[in-house]
């Protein structure tokens, strides 16, 4: 989940460009090529769904924070209100991931606060959000290796 698609593609180039020593041929080289093929197949899924998943997650988090800002005050409430009012106008991978990192850090803080307050309604809402988040970010391993 953490490497970005651009990182994965740069890594493909680096791995393919690197010469292997003589003792790393044969089965090892074949296995390594199989992994590169699998990464390419996963990269195709990410290219199709990755931007949409990030746009959805960032928008959903902003909506969650705007709502929570109505009941959580103080320093956390201020951060929630500011994040909830944010907008996304740069759809590059780096901008989306940068915004997502900030939003996720705030989500962690909000969930901790909900647990501390025993706010079960918000806890359940965040847990449901985690399930959706994992689903949107899923990568499905192709059945191309082994049996």
């Amino acid at each position, binding site marked *: *989940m*953490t490497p970005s698609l651009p*990182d*994965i593609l740069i890594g493909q180039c680096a*791995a393919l460009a690197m010469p292997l020593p003589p003792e790393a041929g044969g089965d090892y080289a074949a296995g390594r090529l199989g992994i590169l093929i699998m990464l390419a197949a996963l990269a195709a899924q990410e290219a199709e769904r990755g931007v949409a998943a990030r746009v959805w997650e960032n928008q959903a988090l902003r909506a969650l924070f705007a709502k929570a800002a109505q009941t959580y005050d103080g320093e956390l409430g201020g951060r929630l209100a500011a994040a909830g009012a944010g907008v996304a106008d740069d759809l590059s991978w780096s901008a989306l991931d940068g915004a997502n990192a900030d939003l996720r850090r705030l989500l962690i803080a909000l969930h901790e606060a909900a647990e501390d307050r025993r706010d079960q309604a918000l806890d359940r809402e965040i847990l449901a959000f985690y399930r959706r988040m994992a689903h949107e970010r899923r990568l499905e391993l192709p059945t191309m290796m082994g049996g």
Partner: protein
Amino acid sequence: MTLAERLAAYLTRTSGEPIAVENLARISGGASRETYRFDAVTGGARQGRILRRDPPGSLIETDRRLEFLAIRSFAGKGVAAPEALVLEEEGAELERPFFIMGRVEGGAAASPFDPDPYGVHADAIGERFFGILGTIAAQPLDGLPILEAAARPAPEDCWRRELDYWSGVIEADEQHPQPIVRAAIRRLKRDPPPPSARVAVIHGDYRSGNFLHDGAGAILAVLDWEMAHLGDPLEDLAWAMDPLWSPPGGGRISGMVTRDEALTIWGRASGMAIDPAALAWWSLFASVKAQAIWTSSAKAWRDGGFTEPILALSGW
């Protein structure tokens, strides 16, 4: 000099007799160490060997010694541990630390992508797999070589030590915030398990794919002891039963036996009763540990210049 020539020079120097290295070939698996097979030839005799060498820039020096001593701890104890032969912590002619094991012939490791890895021998493999794990849990610690390098936690500290270690790995190596695993860590801290019923050797990565089988129901060698330590045996059991290693929809742990059968086999071999709540805690912990390993793999991939694709696949 080639790696084979350097290895031959090391073996010749340390054994005092000429040893040739033939058929040196890197093999897949074991992302944290470079693994090679080779033949050591001396006086007309040929012996199959495995070389496990630290990758460039490795910082996990204690793990190497622990792995070697853990394997040696189970020599002749019925758990299919390979033969641990040589530990070289300075690197010498190979420039990086390594150890050498006897090579087990005629076996294969199951692919994690195989939907039916053991076929008609699934029951036999499951009986042996969980039986070996129970035998490891039952092994008394006194006198084991692993005690030279492994800390022995108090029963009430096993969970905290492991959780602190792996949550620390996530904290140190995380590139992008992961709220789900953070929530899991908090839950584990809020609701810890009871003290371990027994402190035993933990293999640390005991699962399908980390052993060699003969294709006819026998386990020939248990591999990848690099995360071995002392702790609560339920840690290994929960890790071995993690859904991550099981083909989807089959209802059998790692394509072997049902969950109830696995618990029965393990309980019989270990002599331990299984606390369901404690096992549930260690099952959630297994997910945290897996996430930590993947996070660490992603960092190693970036730090290594993106050249080891297995680390990218693990970390993605």
